[in-house]
């Protein structure tokens, strides 16, 4: 079946009434989560993951993934509203929007244009990224289907290397988090020899530590403690904001002038996002940097230049879409948020990876079609509902904070009806708060935790096949190239350090 035919089938799935309903619910919840500072998209998806279990039970896994993905898209759009109107980023990926979004809204008095610019760029960027996803994911999956244990292990190693080598503030802390995640994943029975490991005589530890309670803890509880700690949201300056027809027309004219910039950022963001571990946040900074680099009017940046809004937002949304590529094609999460979605796939009984395209085509193509629909839906809601979104900012924190704690607890409990998981969530909530405080990156930890079992399995399968010969990873050209790439990525921070030292001495 060709791509367009499959996509048409996907639209037939995505347009079923219950799927549209849950897509809408996901997008709206995502918008709310995006607007609320102190609650990010990853936490939102993590907290609502258990609800998706009920959705998958009553409908299908396709409905559940459409719902979770909808939260991601909603949060992508919603995070920028507070950046632009209040100078408070609702999401980490909306930080780049502070540079030009707030000045355009405040100093130039055009909040409507600023908002419309970001929504339109989000939508156009995501549209191009989704088209790329539609045509490339299947190709990549076809290649990945031929992978054996050695190649798969090499893919996992490359994923960890990108997390460590690109973007991490302290590469050594990222190394530590990756290894710590692998260690946590190893707790419990060894699937190959059946030996108990790291259980310390505790029966409850033999089944291992669940990925979901840990993630809800790290992101849900950890983030709410961190934002309670930073408190001080306090005074919010009110900018009256509506997106009127005039704003839309003005923005449209601005977009036409910058259409190539937006499309280029969409494409670049997509490929950047498809690298494992890097989602919208890194994408938006990359987009802002590129727009400034290419612009002839560099001095306008930071003063409310529309390119400074459109470029990062197009790249951010495209990166989020791109982060689904490795999840669908390789079974490797492309961002922390898609790591949480991947956990959902496991719970609903699906194995993320290339076989999805063969065993569950309705799932894959339904998801892809829902990305087109979800972005369009969110875009339309955003254009009409800005005043409502701005009101969410005034939600009473004294009630919201305990509510989020309680919802996280329900999420952890309801997976297995086990209070042990609640305890894990609370413990990892406190750990997550502390690691944030100490500036440890959490993305490597989460990705390593979700990939830990597969990494070990493929590594040992490869070594069993080769009778313990490590050369197996270099005999296959694909795994040799991937591992070589991983080594280069791991060396990047080291080279950077040496160069800095060189210039400091000169």
């Amino acid at each position, binding site marked *: 079946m060709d791509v367009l035919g499959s996509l048409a089938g996907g639209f037939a799935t995505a347009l079923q009434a219950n799927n549209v309903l849950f897509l809408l619910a996901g997008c709206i919840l995502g918008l709310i989560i995006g607007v609320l500072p102190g609650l990010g998209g990853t936490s939102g998806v993590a907290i609502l993951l258990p*609800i998706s279990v*009920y959705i998958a039970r009553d409908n299908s896994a396709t409905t559940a993934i459409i719902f979770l993905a909808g939260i991601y898209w909603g949060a992508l759009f919603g995070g920028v509203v507070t950046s632009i109107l209040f100078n408070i980023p609702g999401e980490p990926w909306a930080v780049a929007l502070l540079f030009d979004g707030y000045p355009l809204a405040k100093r130039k008095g055009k909040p409507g244009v600023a908002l419309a610019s970001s929504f339109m760029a989000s939508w156009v960027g995501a549209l191009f990224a989704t088209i790329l996803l539609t045509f490339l994911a299947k190709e990549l999956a076809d290649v990945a289907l031929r992978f054996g244990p050695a190649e798969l292990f090499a893919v996992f190693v490359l994923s960890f290397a990108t997390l460590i080598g690109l973007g991490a503030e*302290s590469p*050594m*802390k990222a*190394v*530590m988090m*990756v*290894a*710590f995640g*692998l*260690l946590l994943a*190893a*707790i419990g029975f*060894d699937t*190959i*020899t*059946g*030996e*108990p*490991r*790291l259980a*310390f005589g505790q029966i409850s530890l033999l089944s291992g530590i669940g990925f979901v309670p840990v993630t809800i803890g790290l992101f849900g*509880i950890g983030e709410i*403690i961190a934002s*309670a*700690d930073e*408190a001080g949201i306090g005074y919010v300056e009110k900018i009256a904001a509506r997106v009127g027809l005039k704003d839309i027309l003005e923005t449209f004219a601005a977009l036409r002038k910058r259409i190539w910039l937006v499309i280029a950022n969409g494409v670049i963001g997509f490929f950047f996002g498809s690298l494992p571990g890097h989602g919208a946040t890194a994408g938006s900074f990359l987009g802002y940097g590129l727009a400034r680099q290419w612009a002839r009017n560099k001095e306008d940046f930071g003063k409310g230049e529309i390119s400074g809004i459109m470029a990062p937002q197009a790249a951010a949304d495209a990166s989020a879409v791109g982060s689904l590529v490795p999840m669908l094609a390789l079974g490797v999460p492309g961002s922390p948020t898609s790591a949480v979605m991947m956990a959902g796939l496991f719970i609903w009984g699906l194995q993320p990876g290339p076989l999805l395209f063969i065993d569950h085509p309705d799932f894959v193509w339904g998801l892809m079609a829902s990305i087109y629909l979800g972005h369009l839906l969110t875009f339309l809601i955003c254009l009409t509902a800005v005043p409502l979104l701005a009101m969410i900012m005034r939600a*009473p*924190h*004294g*009630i919201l*904070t*305990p*509510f989020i*704690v*309680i*919802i996280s*607890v*329900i999420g952890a*409990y*309801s997976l297995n*009806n086990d*209070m042990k998981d*609640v*305890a894990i969530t*609370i413990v990892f909530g*406190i750990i997550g708060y*502390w*690691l944030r*405080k*100490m500036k*440890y990156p959490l993305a490597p930890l989460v990705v390593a935790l979700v990939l830990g079992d597969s990494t*070990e399995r493929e*590594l*040992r399968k490869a*070594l*069993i096949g080769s*009778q*313990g010969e490590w050369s197996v990873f270099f005999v296959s050209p694909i795994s040799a190239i991937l591992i070589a790439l991983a080594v280069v990525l791991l060396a990047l921070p080291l080279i950077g350090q040496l160069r800095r030292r060189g210039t400091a001495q000169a």
Partner: protein
Amino acid sequence: MRPYQVATAAIFLLIAAVAMFDTRSGALPTSAAGVPGGLRGGWYPFWSGAVVAVAAIVVGAQTLRRPDTEPGVFKDRGAVLYLAKFILPMIVTTYLMSDKLLGFYVATAAYVAYYAGLVARYRWYWAVLAGIAIPLVIYLVFEVAFKALLPKSVFYPTTPF
């Protein structure tokens, strides 16, 4: 910041050491028959632990070598107090949620009312109202709509929650 950073790295080093000690028997490949690929179950966690340990030592050493640019971890004593007022009741609440104690709904009501009234300092009637409304909404969404059972109190079924 520095003492906290070093302490955090030291805790990771300790965790890694415990893990490596626990899995030491599988650390090295063995030629014994019947072990697939010559690797015991402890091999992979042992070496993951080893990487954690090495990274923790490097992070600790880096922190000690670089100048301590950031002051304390917490803004002031008020911030520490606030955290305690937030985290400790959260732990107590989840403990009380067990079906051998207060159960989910009563514990939730108490926690929400506590936070709204004593931490966020809302008027007492708002706190009580929130304490009733939130468990009620959760009951309707989870117990009625999703048919998910949450732990009831030890008094159930004498009381409805």
